[in-house]
């Protein structure tokens, strides 16, 4: 037998310098040693028979106070395996008799124990060694808070606000931030509250209430002071609540930083950005208006022209202007000005082409099969003009037995770092026809397609075996 029957196990338990409690599988406290009672500041009679989390209720201001489930799981695991486990440190704040919480961090070690001496191999309970690691976790924060704050630079003030007594101890810089001369006010906090910008006051009061409820919690307030002469200063307060070791009263200690210059700079930057956006919008408007004007001039010329051939030339020119305009619309729809999503863009170009070409009296469909590739704006403009020429060609020169034509625009990644554009129609054309069907008598269409392929640093392939297919392969 490991323990001499003459030794009282209870005495050993109480003599241990480490705080220990015994919990059953439902986290009810079965036993607690003297070290534990001393550390927590509660008598045994308050603890025994109660659920641990009923006694130590979670702090409603600590959003992470949810370790009950973790402890429950660990206890069940230890009872099942019979192997002790050390839990990772966690925060669980403890409520004083007067209702205030204090920030506390704990390290728990859970060991299996038996309570029925006739069945020493059946573990029914968990022995928890409870270590208060608050100081280690917070880096002795409470004791050092004052000196740390005082060591900050000279532009920063140090303050100590006594919540219950309504007093404010501070360095002279804080008076200056509120427009007070040195020694103009005493240590009453009220004059300072009276110079807080009225809109900011509710948030400040809420924050003070919150921080005072939980001693050791962080204080964070951004607000403005409003001086009698109308001066506004932007202030940033940072600190924490502590309990004064001598007086036991709750203090908020911390620093205040005057960030007015930063705020003004921020406003200037915002204003510059607004101006730039306005300018951008204005330029965008001008460009769209100018494109409309060019298109209107061509329309008017076409309208006046009696020569059908000349009118077709002008209509083709208008279509080319629209191909460029579609790119412009796509550009300003997105945030990115340097590249264009080809799938969304070609969808728009398709609408242009359908509306402009459907009046030619041909029933045509355009099918898009386009991968979501981004292309630089310059290349996208060139590509769109090529698509415009090729699709227009198919509409104008393809012949269809049933009058139902389909043009497919197919764009996808090809080989390594290349992009392939295919414009395919299901029309028929004599095999000895010209290599590229032309949109204008001048052969401009041919030259444009060749020129655009060259501009894309690509090459053209053609295939007339089944309908009409033109392929341009270019580096992406």
């Amino acid at each position, binding site marked *: 037998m490991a323990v001499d029957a003459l030794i009282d196990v209870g005495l050993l338990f109480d003599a241990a310098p480490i705080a220990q409690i015994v919990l059953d599988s439902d986290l009810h406290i079965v036993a607690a040693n003297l070290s534990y009672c001393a550390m927590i500041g509660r008598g045994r009679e308050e603890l025994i028979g109660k659920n641990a989390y009923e006694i130590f209720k979670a702090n409603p201001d600590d959003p992470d106070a949810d370790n009950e489930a973790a402890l429950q799981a660990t206890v069940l695991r230890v009872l099942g395996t019979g192997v002790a486990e050390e839990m990772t440190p966690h925060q669980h704040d403890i409520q004083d008799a007067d209702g205030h919480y204090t920030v506390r961090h704990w390290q728990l070690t859970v060991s299996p124990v038996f309570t029925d001496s006739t069945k020493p191999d059946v573990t029914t309970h968990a022995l928890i060694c409870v270590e208060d690691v608050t100081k280690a976790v917070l880096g002795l924060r409470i004791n050092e808070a004052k000196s740390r704050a005082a060591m900050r630079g000279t532009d920063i003030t140090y303050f100590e606000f006594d919540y219950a007594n309504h007093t404010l101890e501070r360095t002279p810089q804080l008076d200056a931030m509120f427009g007070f001369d040195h020694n103009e006010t005493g240590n009453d906090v009220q004059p300072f509250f009276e110079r807080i910008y009225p809109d900011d006051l509710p948030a400040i009061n809420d924050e003070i209430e919150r921080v005072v409820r939980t001693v050791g919690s962080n204080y964070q307030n951004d607000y403005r002071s409003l001086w009698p002469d109308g001066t506004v200063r932007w202030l940033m307060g940072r600190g924490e609540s502590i309990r004064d070791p001598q007086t036991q009263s709750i203090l908020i200690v911390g620093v205040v930083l005057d960030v007015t210059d930063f705020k003004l700079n921020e406003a200037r930057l915002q204003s510059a950005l607004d101006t730039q956006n306005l300018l951008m*919008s204005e330029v965008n408007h001008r460009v769209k*208006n100018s494109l*409309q*004007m060019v298109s209107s001039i061509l329309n008017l010329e076409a309208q006046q022209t009696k020569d059908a051939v000349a009118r077709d030339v002008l209509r083709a020119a208008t279509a080319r202007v629209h191909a460029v305009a579609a790119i412009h619309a796509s550009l300003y729809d997105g945030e990115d000005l340097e590249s264009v999503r080809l799938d969304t863009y070609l969808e728009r170009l398709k609408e242009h082409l359908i509306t*402009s070409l459907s009046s030619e009296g041909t029933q045509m469909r355009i099918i898009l099969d386009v991968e979501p590739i981004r292309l630089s704006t310059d290349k996208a403009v060139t590509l769109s003009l090529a698509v415009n020429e090729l699709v227009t060609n198919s509409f104008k020169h393809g012949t269809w037995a049933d009058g139902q034509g389909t043009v497919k625009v197919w764009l996808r990644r090809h080989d390594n770092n290349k992009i392939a554009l295919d414009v395919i129609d299901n029309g028929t054309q004599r095999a000895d026809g010209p290599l590229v069907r032309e949109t204008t008598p001048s052969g401009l269409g041919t030259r444009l397609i060749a020129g655009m392929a060259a501009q894309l640093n690509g090459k053209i392939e053609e295939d007339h075996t089944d309908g009409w297919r033109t392929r341009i392969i270019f580096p992406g």
Partner: protein
Amino acid sequence: MGGERALSSPDKEPALRILVVEDNVFIAFDLEAQIQDMGHVVVGIAMTASSAIEMSNQHRPDLAIVDLQLADGSRGQDAAEHLRTELEIPSIIVSGSLHHVTADERAIIQPIAMLSKPLLPNELRQVIDKMASSQRA
């Protein structure tokens, strides 16, 4: 400017009488030509908001085609609002910056359509045809 020439034949729906509010002369003439080509009548071309209202009082058009930024710094929205609320004349807004029309203005104007410049070929025709056929119905 726009003479009252109707090109519609008698068996078609009656021509609409349309006011063009646009301060760019090329665009205004182009719109006029497009409208006449559709068989409708252009009652006038206004280049400012005030002249748009004046011409509307005089000619009582069925529809106005309204640009936003007009000559003398006046706003197409103001003309379109007046036309809608005082004269019950609907508008089609045509502009390069449609986002300048606020939600409130839009609620008052109740535009038949808001078309972005540059106009697609036939875009205007589709909107006006739809309006003409719904009027006939």
